[in-house]
């Protein structure tokens, strides 16, 4: 049972402008990431340390195996993976906030863990908004940043994907970060 072929062809098609194919490819990747994450947790008695890198690599292997030799295809894949991951983070943050505001889901006897991350959730959503702005302002910077944070790619890997030097990537990461800071109102 191999999902390789469909994903690759959808990636190509979406690269060629087929939005529908792009959405399908995204759906596959998104579903796979969630499934992997859920399975990791359901399977192990202890909390597995999941990192975006591990998850994305796992999804990559599972979905694409050896068929993403083409650089463009890989770019596409990681775009999708990062986007999926980003979406997941946002969804999660929104759910957390809904809980905290007492959408009837949890009683007030919350353990501290939840309270803490509620704070983060608000920040996350704010950052997401700023990032959306960066998407519109400078897509390349946003892409670099998203790959770093959401897909866990290293500077070297991003450099290869973009066809630039590592130093450039490092610089762009800094620029993106500071842009977001500006957007969030911290003017240094």
């Amino acid at each position, binding site marked *: 049972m191999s999902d390789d072929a469909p994903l690759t062809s959808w990636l190509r098609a979406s690269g060629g402008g087929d939005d529908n194919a792009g959405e399908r490819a995204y759906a596959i990747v998104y579903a796979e990431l969630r499934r992997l994450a859920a399975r990791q947790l359901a399977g192990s008695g202890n909390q597995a340390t999941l990192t975006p890198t591990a998850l994305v690599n796992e999804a990559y292997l599972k979905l694409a195996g050896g068929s993403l030799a083409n650089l463009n295809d*890989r770019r596409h894949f990681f775009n999708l993976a990062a986007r999926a991951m980003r979406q997941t983070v946002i969804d999660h943050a929104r759910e957390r906030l809904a809980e905290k505001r007492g959408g009837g889901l949890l009683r007030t006897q919350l353990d501290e863990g939840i309270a803490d991350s509620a704070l983060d959730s608000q920040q996350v959503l704010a950052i997401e908004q700023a990032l959306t702005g960066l998407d519109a302002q400078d897509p390349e910077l946003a892409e670099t940043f998203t790959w770093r944070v959401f897909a866990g790619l290293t500077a070297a890997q991003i450099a290869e994907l973009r066809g630039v030097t590592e130093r450039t990537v490092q610089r762009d990461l800094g620029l993106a970060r500071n842009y977001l800071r500006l957007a969030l109102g911290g003017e240094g």
Partner: protein
Amino acid sequence: MTQAADLRLFAPERWADVRKLVDRLDQLTPTERARELQALGQNDAELARIAGMLLDQTLESVAEPLLRAVDNLFGDARATVPTRIGPFRLLRRIGAGGMGVVYLAEREGADFTQRVALKLLDANVARMNRFASRERRILASLAHPNITAFVDAGSDDASTWLAMEYVDGETLVDYCQNRQLDLRGRVMLFDQVCAAVAHAHAQLVVHRDLKPSNVLVNNEGAAKLLDFGIAQILDVTDERTPATRVFTPEYASPEQLRGDHATTATDVYSLGLMLYELIAGKRLPTLGRPGDADWTTAELARLATTQPEPLPNPAATPGAAKLVARQLRGDLGRIIAHAVAAEPAHRYASVLQLREDLTRWLEHRPLTIARRKFSYVAARFVRRNRVAVAVAAIAIAGLIGLSVVALWQAQRARVMAERADRARSFLADMFASADPFSTKGGRTSVDRLRDGAQRIEEHFADAPETQAELRATIASVLDRIGEPAQARDLMLRSVEQLRQVHGPRAPQVGVALTKLALAREDSGDLDGAHADFSAAYAILQGSGPAYAKARIDAVTGLAKLANLRGDFADAERMHESVLKERVESEGPESADIAMDLMNLAADSLYAERYAKSQELAQRAHVMLEHAVGPRHARNIYVDNVLGLAQANAGDIDAGMTTLRGAIELARATLQPGAMMIGNVIGSLGSVQLLAGDYAAAAVTLTEARALNKAAKNPRLGVTAMLLGLTQLRLQGTDALATLRDAREIMAAQTSSTDVAYATWGQAAYAAALAAAGDAAEAERLAREARATLLASPRAKSVRLGEVDVLLAEVLDRNKRADEARTLRAEALATFQRVYGPDHARTRAVAAQESASGRNQ
């Protein structure tokens, strides 16, 4: 996207300026940059400020919360906590176990509020089980002060849940450390746990997953054992996910890791490990160990005091470590060593005996177990240079799921002996280099497995046994993921090597030959498989109980091939010997024995001894349902045989009901493309045909054919043939094409197609041909079919009756009424012989015969 655009900080042209400036400044040294900015500041202060800010490396990363959010993201996979489950209201999450998430929940009663620990079972696990009355009875019978009481269980569409007494306390190890309990205190606490396990064993319940984290101690100092009975109820060997076994590898006994059944001795083993951990403060590193080496007290003592990550010692005084070591070298160590003996028969025969020795130790009396002679122990303790079975089991479990990360992490978490370490890191390396950016291009898991296999030789040049084990491991995985040809090549090498290392008659060679045979079978080389199974059996025949499983595999393999050849008597003999062996080693009833009975029922079915088949299948059905419950997937296979047997033995209604049930279960529990679904539906179709219900049969068999085709099921030919026959009876125009198609398919698979079906198919095709007008050719083909069948070993088959009926039809068209009548009479005699006079088919043919008689 107007919204996003509104979120931009700068207008596009402005940003372009910013970028240009920033890019330029970036090339300069800090001093030059500062100067530039200052100069710029005269003209456009704002721009300078922004550029400066953007380039500032020192600012705190705003991405921190984001990174944290991503990292913590999956810390709570079920972001939404449901509010109610059954009669309980959920309060908060208290943990996650191997089978699902646990919540603290409350139930309001008339005058009380009951608190429970509510376990929501994992979808995978829950799907396989319902908490039927039998399970509830088991759980309820375990009432004991040291076992968390069972409160309630239930399931609905959304989830299956289990409510247990909620214990507010700490885990065993934490409790002991936080209260600084001394050795005696720990042993006494441990004895409570033993009391609980002994009680359960008295109720014939085995825990199977005993470990310190499964024991809580409340404020009154009472130990409470969690999850009792669950493991036994839920752990069924599910064919689809062999990796889903409800035990923890670090605490599993050698027999559990081998895949054998857990018994009370398994619990004794786990208790031994638990006691060691309580005394030494750390786990006994069992996984690096050869599966058949016992522990000496010296080792226990040494390991307790020299380990990488020491946990706080009991009664943390400076002399504590020495005290622990001394006790472990003494009687306490002997108790532990006896409990964790590799061979179940060498352990304490019961938990009660273990408790007896614990009491004796507390009272400073001599133990019940004999002191071992040092030389005997030394001789037994042979360090073998091979990979522990545990590695293989975990490796396979991880690799089958193609879960790279899981395997890697699982491997990393084990502490192992040096040589096993090498093997483990070798396997892990194969997958750890999952770098999608490597310029060699992406590599699939299969590539990696194959490359890994090639590297085995150089890596383990000094350890041929390890090589053989690793090859076998990788070969199994290759076979399972659908690369039987590669598996076969690998196993060939493994067999050769094992022959060299151990000698050609060694049992290890037999085991490897069995695996090789399976790989050959999967790649279609039935003759080769037969040769290998035979060779394996010849070796394993006299290898004793340790190799029972491999021996059974070899015989089962031979029996299956015999069935395919039509050698039913042979197959039956072999299945009977397997059954006998299993009953001897496992007792009168078990899920596997039920499957053995099913095999025998199938043998009888092929041999057309329908009454016997029905009886055996019925026994298998009852035994299996008793062993694993009615919703387990294995029931599908048994009920398939049972339904066919019932229908052929005369009870058509019962057969159809059974098969319908099996179909429903198959659809509910198997993967959508699974071959078995098509098989069972095909069975129902064949029964409907047998009953003469052609309209229903046509619908059913059409679906079966489509499913067979999609799943590349070897039964496609037969299914198509039955469909064609049905269409013929319905006088449809598609019968001819369908039957021609079926003939071709069956012709392409002569080695595995029963000649009785092939000739039946040919006769049916002939009848269709005659109906279409080509009477001469039809007669030739039909006569040929009859002759072929009569000359074959299957001459006594009931299909001869079918062939005769079809030939009679053709002859009728060619005006050879007399001969046709004779044939019909013979057919009737055949059906009377095999089905009996009251069978629907017999009566149908009888009616036909007397009708044609009247027409003369």
